[in-house]
């Protein structure tokens, strides 16, 4: 039994879960800043992303060192590869939260559309839920839970489409035009966070089944699992 190797694997996985909770914090901060037009909080979110990046790089370095020294195979190899991907997906999610914070600053003094703001908050909550499900499915090695991300993603995709339809109606109204156009990007960003959560679920499925498959394929949407 390679005790130190197992400890390193456990440590890396714990760091990844920690990165996941940082991502949830940074996303919650971005959503609150957006709702309350809180520029100060938006700046904190942008600065907080550095903490995520530091952890991301630490995990990346840990995986590199593990691969170089321990030549993991079988389940260990799949776990290391899955962690490499999950690390990247989490880091991208934090970047998206930064995008939301930046958009929030740009529209701080512009009139908003309350129903659309409400639907962004709902999408935000769905995105948070998806991150939690993705992290839990990884921690619990739960294939069913990982696969359930596809349905959650469908909900967030639908919200995004409805959002864009409403924007098309509102874009002629000069008072809210700037706000809704900038918020198209926020809506898209939340939809992308959902996609990354699904990608994490795919990595969990790979870890458990040794076969990589895309849960959904954008170019063959009829072939959903």
């Amino acid at each position, binding site marked *: *039994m390679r005790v130190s*190797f197992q400890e390193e694997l456990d440590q890396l996985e714990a760091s990844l879960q920690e990165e996941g909770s940082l991502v949830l914090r940074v996303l919650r901060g971005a959503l609150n800043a957006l709702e309350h037009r809180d520029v100060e909080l938006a700046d904190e979110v942008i600065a907080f992303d550095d903490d995520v990046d530091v952890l991301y790089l630490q995990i990346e370095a840990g995986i590199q060192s593990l691969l170089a020294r321990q030549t*993991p*195979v*079988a*389940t*260990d*190899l799949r776990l290391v590869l899955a962690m490499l991907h999950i690390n990247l997906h989490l880091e991208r999610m934090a970047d998206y939260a930064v995008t939301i914070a930046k958009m929030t600053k740009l529209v701080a003094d512009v009139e908003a559309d309350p129903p659309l703001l409400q639907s962004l908050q709902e999408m935000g909550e769905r995105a948070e839920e998806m991150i939690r499900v993705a992290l839990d499915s990884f921690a619990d090695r739960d294939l069913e839970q990982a696969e359930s991300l596809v349905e959650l993603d469908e909900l967030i995709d639908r919200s995004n489409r409805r959002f864009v339809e409403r924007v098309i109606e509102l874009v002629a109204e000069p008072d809210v035009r700037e706000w809704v156009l900038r918020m198209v990007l926020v809506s898209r960003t939340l939809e992308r966070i959902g996609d990354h959560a699904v990608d994490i679920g795919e990595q969990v499925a790979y870890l458990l089944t040794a*076969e990589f498959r895309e849960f959904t394929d954008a170019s063959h949407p009829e072939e959903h699992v």
Partner: protein
Amino acid sequence: MAPTMRPVDVTAPRESAPQTRETVFDIKDLKASYGSNVAVRSVDMEIYRNLVTAVIGPSGCGKSTFIRCLNRMNDEVPGFRQDGKILYHGIDLYGDGVDQIEVRRRIGMVFQRPNPFPKSIYDNVAWAPRILGLRKNLDERVEKALRGAALWDEVKDRLKKSALALSGGQQQRLCIARAIAIEPEVLLLDEPASALDPIATASIEELMHDLKTDYTLVIVTHNMQQAARVADRTAFFSLDVDESGRGAGTLVEYDDTGKLFTAPSDKRTEDYVTGRFG
């Protein structure tokens, strides 16, 4: 990624490996014992032509006994007994009328410690051809074998010098040259690199990759990463203890090497390759 690029399957058999597999050895329910001690039992596997097949497993799992059965190397061991069948191209290796010398001519063997004869480099390689009466074009035969073993350039100017003056890695390649000088079909290698330094090991591994174009190779190794590097197929042997507490080696899993090291089917294989056994 450019649209013309296709994804690469790194675990796929290399190009030199044939697409259709031809069975060289068909092993059926093999059991090998020394006196009342069963060394290995219940082995069923097919070994395919022009592939490198690795046998891995912990000490005492019978992997060396197994590979020695493939060219009747255990015949002289007192108390040795073999049950089950080993078919070589459909012929029972242990059947009546099978000539042991002919078996070893077709199925060569290289051992853990390089064991050159205390003769010249040339005479080491020429030894078996001479015994078998293959005296015609002997110089060409020796050169071809030394080239095949990737040793020619290093020794061509000192063929008459003693083989014992060669380095360990060179001596092992000389033993490979000696084995292939009589153009066998199969090369059995029992821990061929375990007594060598990393550079000599790398050259032996590279050589194995080249040799499989012409030969079928079976290698026993306790170095799992070596199996992962050189073998197309890998067999994992383990020690199986029965109700009476007596242990014997047995074949646990046999599959394409890429599969065995990324997604083994058997928990015992998983535990062994990830270092979690015991």
